């Protein structure tokens, strides 16, 4: 490989956004050779996405700034976005926003339209590329109506149609549920093999990307490259933890079992890892000692009245009947921290919207403290059950933090001195006291998320429902948000989280309600779900790598490894 010349080369490359005081990228030296599959990983703000923008030309042509050093792509210095788009096909993070065509076919053809190619030629090329990615059956459908996996195929086809030698994917997993994410990685691998193009994936979900072969991992932190080597070496090193990237789950488990991880063991992927028989026994022993005493868990169930109860709730959507719900019944007890999981479109959000009164159930009833909520208005319910939307920018209405949190109280005509008291109290709980006089625009995404949680909490609800509380967050922010929710939970707030993040379930939820196609498939302790591949598959989840690890180590009851891991987690095994 060293004989061929690099396709992409950065030499002492530094970039500083015009509006910023310090560079975002420092001294980048990077060579990428034809046909390589590269993962660029790093926490939010590490500069990994900025590097992506330098590759596709958004920098410096749309976002200006100061560049030192040099970069060449396909042996040329960047001249314009259009020149670079010949070399680099970019799939952006939010595929939904990337769709411009009204039908999938039209969207795939977009770049050829812009090159003013004849319609007949476009139709041929679109069909050709659609076949390559397996999207030929829904060329006439609107991209918005497609499932997550189908959207990925269409957006890939739209980039592949240009035949560019480099494929750049910016956080391709961000909006996907676990099994769709796994599928996307397989699709990318498949395309790389078929077309021989160079693939660059920018992503912080390391374990999910390493599901298929990757040649090199380039780690970013604070604008610098801190490591550039094989997945095995990266996973074995302690760099991941130090920069705040989650290690693969099986690696954490092995670590807790006291097994030293070295690059020679090939720990980059669960299916390449080599463990000696001795080490396998060691894992078995660890599982045995770390298992909780029987009966210590599951102490939530049925003593007193449930705080929230759904009785045969059903919902019919008036348009295209998607997200309908059939006969949903479950109970939520005070003090619980429970997850609602399932594929996109399984009905999770609809359920939450019915609980808070945004949608009317077609049948059944929802009880709060044993009483039907049918007669309660939306604002009345909000005083019992708080609801936090996924995107804080969709909730925040006021430019100043204090006014934002006070909004709900002012709308209820609470006296100003009481408002001040309650807002201060809730800002204190949310760790936002020092920002009380700040404008919202000065806050980070995670802090904005806290503000929206404060918006809900200021009305003093017993339950708080969060829609995808950690979507798109890197490990550090994820941990921040989740630790905060756990501390709220310890202070007595019952937490219900809609998510498809299995780590979240594993680490923070005791119980999970699993939805699939509008039905409640299961209502079980988390460890049972995560070690049941059939159930996980139906809910578009994935069995975690702990399940595979228990197979490798010859542990028959795979749930026991998951339980040992969770128990170890909650008893302070976390680093």
């Amino acid at each position, binding site marked *: 490989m060293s004989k061929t010349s690099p396709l992409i080369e950065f030499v002492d490359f530094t970039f500083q956004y015009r509006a910023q005081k310090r560079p975002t990228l420092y001294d980048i030296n990077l060579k990428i050779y034809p046909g390589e599959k590269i993962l660029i990983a790093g926490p939010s703000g590490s500069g990994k996405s900025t590097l992506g923008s330098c590759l596709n030309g958004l920098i410096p042509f749309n976002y200006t700034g100061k560049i030192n050093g040099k970069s060449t792509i396909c042996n040329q210095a960047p001249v314009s976005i259009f020149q670079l788009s010949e070399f680099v096909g970019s799939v952006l993070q939010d595929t939904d926003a990337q769709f*411009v065509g009204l039908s999938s076919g039209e969207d795939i053809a977009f770049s050829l339209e812009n090159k*003013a190619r004849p319609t007949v030629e*476009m139709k041929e090329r679109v069909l050709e590329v659609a076949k390559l990615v397996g999207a030929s059956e829904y060329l006439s459908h609107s991209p918005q109506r497609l499932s997550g996996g189908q959207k990925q195929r269409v957006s890939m086809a739209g980039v592949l149609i*240009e035949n560019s030698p480099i494929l750049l994917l910016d956080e391709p997993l961000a909006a996907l549920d676990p099994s769709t994410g796994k599928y996307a990685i397989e699709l990318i691998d498949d395309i790389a093999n078929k077309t021989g193009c160079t693939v660059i994936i920018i992503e912080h979900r390391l374990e999910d990307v390493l599901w298929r072969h990757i040649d090199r991992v380039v780690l970013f932190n604070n604008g610098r490259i801190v490591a550039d080597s094989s997945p095995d070496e990266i996973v074995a090193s302690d760099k991941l933890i130090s920069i705040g990237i989650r290690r693969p789950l099986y690696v954490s488990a092995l670590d807790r079992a006291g097994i030293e991880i070295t690059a020679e063991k090939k720990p980059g992927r669960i299916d390449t890892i080599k463990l000696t028989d001795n080490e396998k026994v060691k894992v078995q022993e660890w599982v045995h000692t770390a298992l909780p005493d029987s009966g210590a868990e599951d102490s939530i169930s049925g003593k007193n009245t449930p705080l929230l109860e759904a009785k045969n709730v059903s919902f019919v959507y008036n348009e295209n009947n998607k997200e309908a719900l059939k006969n949903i019944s479950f109970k939520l007890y005070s003090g619980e921290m429970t997850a609602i999981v399932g594929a996109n479109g399984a009905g999770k959000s609809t359920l939450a919207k019915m609980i808070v009164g945004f949608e009317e159930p077609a049948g059944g009833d929802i009880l709060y403290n044993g009483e039907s909520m049918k007669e309660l208005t939306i604002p009345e319910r909000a005083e019992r059950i708080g609801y936090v939307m996924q995107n804080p920018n969709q909730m925040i209405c006021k430019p100043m933090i204090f006014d934002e949190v006070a909004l709900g109280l002012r709308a*209820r005509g609470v006296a100003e001195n009481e408002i001040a008291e309650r807002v201060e109290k809730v800002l204190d709980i949310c760790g936002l006291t020092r920002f009380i006089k700040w404008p919202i625009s000065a806050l980070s995404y995670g802090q904005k998320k806290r503000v929206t949680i404060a918006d809900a909490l200021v009305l003093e609800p017993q339950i708080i429902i969060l829609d995808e509380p950690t979507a798109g967050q890197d490990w550090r922010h994820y941990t921040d948000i989740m630790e905060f929710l756990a501390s709220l939970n310890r202070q007595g707030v019952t937490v219900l989280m809609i998510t498809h993040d299995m780590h979240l379930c594993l680490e923070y939820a005791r119980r999970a309600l699993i939805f699939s196609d509008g039905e409640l498939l299961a209502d079980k302790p988390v460890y049972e779900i995560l070690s049941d591949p059939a159930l996980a598959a139906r809910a578009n989840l994935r069995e975690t790598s702990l399940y595979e690890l228990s197979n490798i180590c010859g542990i028959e009851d795979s749930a026991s490894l998951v339980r040992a891991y969770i128990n170890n987690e909650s008893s302070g095994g976390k680093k």
Partner: protein
Amino acid sequence: MKVFGYIPKDTPVHKLTGASKLILTFALSIAAMITFDTRFMLFVIVISFVLFSISGIRFSDFKAILALLILFMIVNNIAIFLFAPEQGVLIYGTRHEIMHITGRYSVTSEQLFYQLNVTLKYFAIVPVALVFFLTTEPGEFASSLNTIKAHYKVAYAVSLSLRYIPDIQRSYREISQAQQARGINISKKASIRARIAGILTILFPLVFSSLDKVELISNAMELRGFGRLNKRTWYSTRPFTVWDYIITGFSILCILLSVFTIIINGGRFYNPFV
């Protein structure tokens, strides 16, 4: 929430290209604007309604728009009468008073006839425009605008905004629900002032989250080469069929016919009073 827009169906009108339907809409509008000839407008109305019934559009698909239009028509008619009660007399040169109301206001046959003609214009143009909107795929929309020589960037901007209307409606709904939970009341129970204040509160996050999207989309489009050339082609362009040529020919004929009415009437008005 029902979105006003393209309704896929399989009718001869749907099979016409967007371009020929747009040309027809423009031609009939121009023709109906040129002349006040009642006979010609009745002819255009018949054509419009024939197209309308072939296209299989149901009343429920456009009733909101129709209500708005009728309201506008009534307001327009009242305004004409209030500001120019003798306009008809002025145009047709005779005065047949039917009844006297007060002061300078009286009902004349000429005024009634004039206002009838104004109203007929709406009925001549609106059905065709509706047919165009409801039977043309938004994807074809842009290419049809481009066919009649609008720059493709303008054409694309129009079609893209149509494409994002449902998205914006959805986020408006989501945001308004979340704000209602916080106690913002925009229901009919609240006072007008409270409702307006509430809606303004909702617009704040709506505008900001939409602006984020605009940046994303424009980046995505540019990365895929939008705007690199002075022209572009369209995937959804369909070749003209015999019917498209017939419709285009008919459109030209309509304009010629309207010009012809001016010649035989010796002006823009058909005068039955002399």
